[in-house]
């Protein structure tokens, strides 16, 4: 039976759109395809989107999710938007560090600092 659980929750703020992942583990191909569809839909809805991805729920992810984030990042910047990641657990942050993706993603400790970072770019 197909999962009916939403993969993300979306909050449309004045200065930023905040997407929070709702799954603790993001692993399966199907999950990642669903996530990509959801995220691309959000990005396409808003011109020059200021997007914050909140990982506070996520406890485990695979390298396939890193690929998804790179595709999301390309889409955001193609549309002259900005992207910030926040609330990443130390273990998952280690994955970003090992892969050197800390060089291409702006990772902030929490939503407030992510929003402040976006505001500085305006």
């Amino acid at each position, binding site marked *: 039976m197909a999962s009916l659980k939403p993969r993300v929750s979306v909050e449309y703020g004045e200065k930023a759109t905040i997407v929070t992942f709702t799954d603790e583990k993001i*692993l*399966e*191909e*199907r999950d990642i395809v669903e996530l990509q569809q959801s995220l691309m839909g959000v990005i396409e809805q808003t011109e020059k989107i200021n997007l914050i991805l909140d990982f506070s729920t996520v406890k*485990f992810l*695979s*390298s*396939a999710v*890193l*690929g*998804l984030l*790179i*595709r999301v990042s390309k889409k955001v910047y193609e549309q002259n938007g900005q992207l910030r990641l926040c609330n*990443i657990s*130390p*273990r998952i*942050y*280690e*994955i970003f*560090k*090992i*892969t*050197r*993706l*800390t*060089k*291409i993603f702006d*990772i*902030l*400790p929490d939503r407030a600092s992510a929003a402040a970072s976006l505001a500085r770019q305006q």
Partner: protein
Amino acid sequence: MPISRSVVVSSTPSAVVDVFRQLQPGLKASNFSEEDIFAVHLALEEAFTNAVKHGNKMEPSKAVKIDYAIESDKVEICMTDEGSGFDPEVIPDPRYGDNLYKPAGRGMLLMRSFMDVIEYNERGNSVRMIRYREKRKPSSKSTAGTNP
């Protein structure tokens, strides 16, 4: 008491979920830390993805054999697919140049970083991975409090 098991699963990406469900209680019962369990889980996922996608070319009829052993000081996993194999030495480093911006190619780097031993057979269709309980490489330490 050492735990040793051998399982054969089909080449569907979700099949590894059940394998980890079998493995996890043994790791917990043997008092492996959450760090160890996270590392083994990640390496298992990445190795399985490689076996299914690149080894067995997503053909569900082809099998992946997973042997694992949990001992007091280490956990060892051997995973074999039915593919023709590959040369791990020719896989580009995903951390540099244009590779950094590519969506794929990070699985093996993560396996090497989170496990203490990674060895391929000569054909390149079987990988043996070991994580020792005590030994920690600097790259696998928790970075609690170091988030930017």
